[in-house]
């Protein structure tokens, strides 16, 4: 591919009746890089992925994927992409092997080539033993693996993964991340959606934060974290009479007014200095002789990111309602 941008979308708007799912979204993903679309439930992540993968038509705006316009040349786009939808879409009545062979054939591989690819992928995804069982009997994890294998059948140039790690345990998530790293290292362009800043930080060169169909922040993880005040240092004390002292100390180390949670005996403040900042706080605590039960450096959660960026918390109830309706 010659174009430097694997994905290029401008002014995407999508309405569902009175509801605006996307209100003018721009996304540019350079070839061979990873972009994470980060946002809470109902933000419009799936809608954006559906438009970019030719499943839905935007009401306004244009999008090019792998050098082809999604509206004018959908099949040229489809030949070059892999999509793992938010819920695994494997065929429950076909075996794992039959699923992969069918997808290979519909990717226009010859039947023998499709069979060869199916066996190869089943082996790499440790599904050989389950290959000849219908997938309705697969566990959730097996179905996910098969779904991912299916998206890779045609060696896609551009890979779209819609919340690939939601519901995976930490070990499974780490393994998937490792695979994605390696794929990207070998030239695959990746766009993934996620609700976790940690995941976006771990994988993405660029992060697009989206809320209610609008992009509210974008940049690499570092610049984004700077915008949201970086990581958080949390101190949990053994007993609560030294809370004020710890808070004062934390304030002087980080330059931010800490949040004090008396019942939990914690003080928390943002830092942009990472581990160095944590070390400074640890030293100061030791010098002051304050006994600490726990001292941690952690990334802000999506809720905290949103609180900082939008000044309001994520409305989980409303989103839960919307999920149920969609």
């Amino acid at each position, binding site marked *: 591919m010659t174009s430097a941008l694997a994905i290029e979308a401008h002014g995407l708007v999508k309405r569902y009746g009175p509801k605006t799912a996307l209100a003018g979204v721009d996304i540019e993903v350079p070839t061979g890089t990873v972009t994470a679309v980060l946002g809470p439930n109902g933000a419009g992540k799936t809608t954006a992925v559906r438009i970019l993968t030719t*499943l839905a038509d935007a009401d306004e705006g244009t999008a090019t994927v792998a050098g082809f316009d999604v509206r004018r040349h959908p*099949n040229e786009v489809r030949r070059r992409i892999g999509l793992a939808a938010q819920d695994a879409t494997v065929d429950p009545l076909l075996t794992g092997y039959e699923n992969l062979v069918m997808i290979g054939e*519909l990717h226009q591989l010859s039947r023998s080539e499709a069979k060869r690819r199916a066996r190869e992928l089943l082996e790499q995804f440790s599904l050989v033993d389950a290959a000849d069982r219908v997938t309705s009997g697969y566990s959730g994890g097996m179905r996910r693996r098969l779904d991912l294998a299916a998206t890779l059948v045609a060696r896609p140039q551009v890979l779209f993964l819609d919340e690939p790690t939601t519901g995976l345990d930490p070990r499974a998530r780490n393994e998937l991340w490792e695979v994605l790293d390696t794929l990207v290292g070998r030239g695959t362009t990746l766009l993934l959606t996620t609700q976790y800043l940690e995941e976006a930080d771990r994988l993405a060169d660029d992060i697009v934060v989206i809320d209610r169909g609008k992009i509210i922040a974008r940049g690499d993880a570092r610049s984004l974290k700077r915008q949201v005040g970086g990581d958080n240092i949390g101190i949990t004390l053994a007993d609560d009479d030294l809370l004020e002292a710890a808070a004062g100390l934390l304030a002087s180390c980080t330059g931010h007014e800490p949040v004090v949670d008396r019942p939990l005996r914690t003080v928390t403040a943002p830092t942009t200095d990472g581990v160095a900042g944590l070390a400074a706080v640890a030293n100061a605590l030791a010098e002051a002789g304050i006994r600490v039960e726990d001292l941690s450096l952690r990334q802000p959660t999506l809720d905290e990111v949103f609180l900082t960026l939008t000044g309001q918390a994520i409305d989980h109830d409303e989103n839960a309602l919307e999920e149920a309706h969609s």
Partner: protein
Amino acid sequence: MSTTTDALGPTSGNGAAARIAEVAAPGPTTDPHPPRGVVHDVWVVARRGLVHMKRQPEALSDATIQPIMFVLLFAYVFGGAIDVPGGGNYREFLMGGIMAQTIVFTSFGVAMSLANDRKNQAVDRFRSLPIAKGAVLGGHAVANLIKAFLPIAIMSVTGLIVGWRIRGSVVDAVAGYLLMVAFAFAMIWIGVLLGSVVRTPEGVQGIAFVALFPLTFVASTFVPVASMPGPLQVIAEWNPITTLSDALRELFGNPNTPTAAGDPWSIANPVAYTWLWIIGIVVVCAPLSVRLYNRSIAR
């Protein structure tokens, strides 16, 4: 969603990621594969439809055991109570009707396949693949045509065992089976229409029960039209399922309702009238249903 362990399976770890990348990353030589054409894609989707039938016990019994049951039930249990006007063997009268009913239910099969595709998100999966235009509907059509003819073959054999014979000419018999193929083809578009409007398997089942099933009974499928009360009789006389049944009886040389001077044109010319319906359905429904279906999946 439940939490899942073993993302890449028990043997993952040590180099698994690298091996996956090896088989999945775009190589310097991986050009997209050129299209193999609509016939290829239709057949791939059709094969899937046939495997589905094989794996669904209830669908398989619909296509195999049920037709045998129907023939035996009507031939031996109800048959004695039903008089064929003008005389003649009821078992022979029955076969045309029972074949017609099976053909009509092709539309139900198509609508069910489409509804299940929606439910399982196969619609999206297909739409993300570089498939020839129309290949998914085409594949469902071919699979359901094949599905329609399995029971017809089974019924023909069962019929032969209980005494049904093709008593007309070979040309007429061929015309009879041809009429069935054509009618099944028309029913596919009714099925697509149904599958565009009614989007869940349960909904399709409901419609089949309140509309399709009665329609096959207000017809000469199992009893002669003359035995029905006035208004029902009029509906039955113009019901294409009546004329399909009668046309098959006529073409197979089986006992049929004798026609009288005052009969409506449909009853007097069942073959021609049925063909008119087939042409009408295909001309009107095929383009309409394809458009409605495509609109219903583009979200």
